[in-house]
């Protein structure tokens, strides 16, 4: 079980800000594939991975990063602070 968080328009498309997900995926990309297969709203949110960023346990990572030992995954668009 892993905590998955969504921010900004990713959150709006999926309609949740946080959920617990049962996954066997080895990498972020694997988890994304599982989520996309669930429902169209996930498929829409993850349509273009180049428009998304991912953080594992609050550290920016890549989509091919391993999920081993990770408790919290967050998906969001490029940040616009400042």
């Amino acid at each position, binding site marked *: 079980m892993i905590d998955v*968080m969504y*921010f*900004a*328009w990713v*959150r709006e498309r999926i309609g949740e800000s946080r959920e617990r997900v049962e996954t066997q995926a080895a990498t972020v990309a694997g988890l994304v594939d599982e989520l996309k297969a669930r429902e169209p709203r996930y498929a829409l949110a993850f349509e273009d991975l180049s428009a998304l960023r991912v*953080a594992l346990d*609050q550290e*920016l990572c890549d989509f091919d990063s391993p999920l081993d030992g990770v408790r919290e995954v*967050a998906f*969001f*668009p*490029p*940040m*616009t*602070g*400042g």
Partner: protein
Amino acid sequence: MRVRVQAQRFDTGAELEGFGAGGDVGAVVSFTGVVRGTGGLARMEIEHYPGMTENAIARFAQEARDRWGLADVLVIHRFGSLVPGEPIMMVATASRHRVAAFEAAEFLMDWLKSRAPFWKKEIGADGETWVAAKDEDETALDRW
């Protein structure tokens, strides 16, 4: 070193009071970002990632302090609903000489723009729009 992520409004002048005092400080630089009212903007909503935001900012602030030997550094960033004219965030740097204070403040701004987990949504007459990240902001990181 002070880092704050908050919903409440802040005042740059009040925050600068006593900032850098007591150290061997010859230069203080501050930057304040303000909500612009262009294009009929009614308000801006800023979403953030609690926990990650504070940690990321503290790390940038620490790096700026070490790299430019700052005597002090301050970062405040707001989230929630803001109207035009309100301050969004500020950074301040205190150092011996002016070049270090300017560079460190610009470094912090460039990192906050593209690497601090905030997302801005503009709400206006035409509806709502998420602010898109700019290529130039990403490119700005290359100089550090």
